[in-house]
């Protein structure tokens, strides 16, 4: 039943949806702190704002717990939860880092 529900979410997003049946699952659920060992029902890798919106709406309608992952460096492992849905924003964070690198270099050249 839940797999079926998640496939509905999968159809709505441009990013990927990873469930325990996916080969990537064991790696995708890991966070920076290896002391944290949690098994979410699914991980949604968002590539744009529309994906984030779809994931949040889906979780609210289904009453799922959500964990938000940025870089995955939370000390307490708050970028992953047991059951529930991980909304993974690490792709956006990588893009933002590239933007920041460029703008910081530009600033240095001007100064």
């Amino acid at each position: 039943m839940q797999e079926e529900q998640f496939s509905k979410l999968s159809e709505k997003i441009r990013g990927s949806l990873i469930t325990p049946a996916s080969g990537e699952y064991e790696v995708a659920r890991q966070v920076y702190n290896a002391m944290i060992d949690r098994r979410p029902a699914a991980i949604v890798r968002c590539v744009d704002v529309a994906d984030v919106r779809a994931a949040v709406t889906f979780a609210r309608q289904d009453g799922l717990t959500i964990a938000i992952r940025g870089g995955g460096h939370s000390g307490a492992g708050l970028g992953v939860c047991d059951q529930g849905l991980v909304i993974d924003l690490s792709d956006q964070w990588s893009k933002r880092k590239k933007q920041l690198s460029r703008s910081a270099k530009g600033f240095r050249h001007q100064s």
Partner: protein
Amino acid sequence: MPFPALQSLFDPLLPKGLQWYWKGDFVRELSDKAIDAHLECAAKAPSELSLMHLYPIDGAVHGVGQSETAWGFRDATWSMVIAGIDADPAKAGAVTAWAKGYWEAVHPHTLGGAYVNFMMDEGVDRIKATYRDNYDRLTEIKRKYDPHNFFRINQNIKPD
């Protein structure tokens, strides 16, 4: 130096996949008694990677009022982190116990609250200590925008 370069400075030393237990506090002064407690605890470190860092909080930070932003430790001069770290999962208990014991020993010499990512799952009292007098206002905001605490897997400010 671009921000991402600064932000990833520790990555080669501390790659993903180590066992970590963090504890923190904000600090105003390092008294002789505090330094003695630090030296005593540091000598018992359970692994080479385990550490205590004091990050300076200076300059413009002190020119902003305590209630002007959510962060309420404008009087702090250091952000302290104690981290028990090791690659071996079998040492998870040892690094955790060391970090907790270290924190117990130095906590009386600090201002009390901590940067929220220098914390494990430590309960609501630590969150309150961290936001100090701003906590009640943050609760009001939470109640307004997320009354059912949908966004709760975080260092959580509860709506009630």
